[in-house]
């Protein structure tokens, strides 16, 4: 029996009194909110029940239960593995515009040092991706170099490479591409046209499809679309409810629209009911100032206004007849504005309430994040030619949140001058997370870390030579590769064929006792 499963089974068998206590105990928050949570959860089930299981899937990480997600343990073209969690390849340097006078030589080093002296095993590789750019002309050449890397806003601080030019660290300009993955239906392969779940890229070929025609990179550098739509906003404030008695007190707003003339975006609402005739009901749990309920609630109306509406309080999230509670109230303020102003404010609101203490992800400007949200709305959200099912309810909070975590390719741009007939050295240093299979999934690749590199995908540079080196190998063993390293023979540096598109290295960490981690 795998060890993690044994632990799982052992946890199943812990003493009954411990289990019982954990079901009933009130967490030490600022007030006795545990029961409130329980009621909220119950209500959430009711609310979710309307949208059914599909909405529930929204709460699952990255695509939830889609049967199309990387199945792991599989073979792959050329002998590499399709991992369950794919970190993306290391891309080659490129130029913003092709320049035939410039060529490149590349030398990439994988450093498998332990993160700390007391680390138990290697996880990830320190990478130094070195380039010598040569100007073959008789005139100095000014070019913009671009270094692409796979990542997400939420992990950017850890993923972003440091760029050095001739040994001096420079501060590049960062350009995020759009969401790199796709969407799939709730039932995966059985619902190929669905788009309720996320489907992140799971192989280097996925990146090949993404980058091959250059349009993805072009979009990353193009201006973001504008959100200059005029909107009517209904904003809730001055919440009142007997929360001591009804901890999950809920307020709902309902109205009828002509769906052909009116589109609704929402922020902060947990519940929604609708029908095709235009009936809409949005409901939220009254904020209590303690639990992490949304504190801002806005309905943003595009097109014809909603007209008359009704407000009704409820004892909990079940907005059913018989469950009304008339002592719930709020002030609804109607005003007109421009969508960009509203979205910008909601991004601040979201990161104030749900972000880490620092607010926006480190290294990302408000302008950049706002642009990414705008782009997402046009690519997959309300303004997309093909609206993803996932965003059909116009939940802005979901979009603001998912823009943060979704995978994308970033480009670091640095202007450089290469002297006539001369060379410059460009170095990218990064810590690359591995691709891997989840523990105890039955995959034969559990414990294996995969590292992909591509030689010319997305690059307009001519590479005269490409070489790879592997260092600090004491704590790893190589499982699969096509680089040509031979640790037993001391071959740790190899010349690569620039015509080969993809190189892969799959290693297993060896623990400090000298045994491969089981």
């Amino acid at each position: 029996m795998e060890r993690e499963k044994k632990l799982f089974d052992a946890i199943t068998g812990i003493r009954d009194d411990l289990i019982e206590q954990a079901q009933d105990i009130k967490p030490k928050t600022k007030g006795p909110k545990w029961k409130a949570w329980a009621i909220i959860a119950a209500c959430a089930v009711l609310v979710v029940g309307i949208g059914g299981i599909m909405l529930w899937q929204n709460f699952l990480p990255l695509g939830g239960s889609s049967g199309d997600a990387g199945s792991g343990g599989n073979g792959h073209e050329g002998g590499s593995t399709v991992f369950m969690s794919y970190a993306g390849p290391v891309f080659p340097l490129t130029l913003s515009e092709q320049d035939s006078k410039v060529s490149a030589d590349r030398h990439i080093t994988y450093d498998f040092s332990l993160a700390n002296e007391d680390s138990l095993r290697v996880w990830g590789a320190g990478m130094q991706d070195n380039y010598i750019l040569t100007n073959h002309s008789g005139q100095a050449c000014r070019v913009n170099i671009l270094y692409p890397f796979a990542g997400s806003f939420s992990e950017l601080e850890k993923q972003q490479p440091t760029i050095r030019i001739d040994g001096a660290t420079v501060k590049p300009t960062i350009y995020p591409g759009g969401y790199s993955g796709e969407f799939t239906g709730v039932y995966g392969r059985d619902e190929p046209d669905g788009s309720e779940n996320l489907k992140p890229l799971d192989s280097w070929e996925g990146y090949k499809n993404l980058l091959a025609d250059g349009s993805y990179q072009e979009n990353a550098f193009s201006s973001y679309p504008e959100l200059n739509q005029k909107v009517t906003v209904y904003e809730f404030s001055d919440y009142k409810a007997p929360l001591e008695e009804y901890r999950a007190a809920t307020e709902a707003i309902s109205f009828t629209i002509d769906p052909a003339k009116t589109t609704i975006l929402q922020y902060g609402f947990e519940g929604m009911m609708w029908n095709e005739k235009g009936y809409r009901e949005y409901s939220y749990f009254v904020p209590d100032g303690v639990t992490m309920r949304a504190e801002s609630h806005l309905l943003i109306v595009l097109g014809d206004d909603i007209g008359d509406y009704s407000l009704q309080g409820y004892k909990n999230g079940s907005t059913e007849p018989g469950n009304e509670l008339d002592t719930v109230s709020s002030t609804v303020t109607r005003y007109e504005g421009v969508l960009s102003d509203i979205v910008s404010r909601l991004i601040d609101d979201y990161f104030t309430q749900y972000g880490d203490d620092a607010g926006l992800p480190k290294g990302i400007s408000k302008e950049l994040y706002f642009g990414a949200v705008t782009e997402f709305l046009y690519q997959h959200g309300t303004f997309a030619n093909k609206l993803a099912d996932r965003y059909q309810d116009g939940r802005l909070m979901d979009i603001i949140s998912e823009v943060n975590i979704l995978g994308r390719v970033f480009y670091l741009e640095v202007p450089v001058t290469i002297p006539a007939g001369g060379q410059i050295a460009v170095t990218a240093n990064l810590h690359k997370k591995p691709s891997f299979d989840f523990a105890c999934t039955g995959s034969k690749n559990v414990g294996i870390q995969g590292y992909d590199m591509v030689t010319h995908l997305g690059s307009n540079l001519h590479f005269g030579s490409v070489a790879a080196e592997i260092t600090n190998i004491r704590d790893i063993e190589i499982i699969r590769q096509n680089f040509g390293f031979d640790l037993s023979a001391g071959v740790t540096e190899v010349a690569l064929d620039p015509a080969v598109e993809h190189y892969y290295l799959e290693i297993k960490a060896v623990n400090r006792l000298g045994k491969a981690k089981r």
Partner: protein
Amino acid sequence: MEDHEIINLYWNRDEAAIQETTYKYGRFCHSIAINILTVPEDAEECVSDTYHKVWNTIPPEKPIAFRAWLGKIVRNLSINRWNHNRAQKRYAGVEILLSELSDCIPDTETTEEILETQILSGYISDWLDTLASMERLLFIRRYWNGEELKQLASTIGTTPNKLAGRMFRLRKGLSAYLTEKGVAI
């Protein structure tokens, strides 16, 4: 209805027992199954199988802590379903849980005695006894109930990132405890 009354219905072979169990603990059972399997239809089947198993098990059993006993059945059926179907299906919940649990594995040479699951449960219970009540709650809600980190963070009024760090320390704490006790898995 009190638990002992529900159990009496089972002993009397009254089918209302299942209805009462569903009414009182249906959501609890479903939450465990969906947390582990994340595939709604499979979770639903698992809960149905749970009721079936309860019907066939009481009598002769007469569980003292009915809710915990039910939850253990759901967990067992859910992990069995994952085990059986994992080649064909992805179950995000259990895969993430198991991945996290790898941090708890003690760094012990395999020459040590490999314990039976039941004895290991005892060690984990003993370790849980050493924790502050909030830490114990967090560990059980995450790794027994299978609650998502985000949900748990919301419950206790912190951010998922902060809670993830706390959970990591808890997992490492269990690993250290088992290592200290010379437990091998």
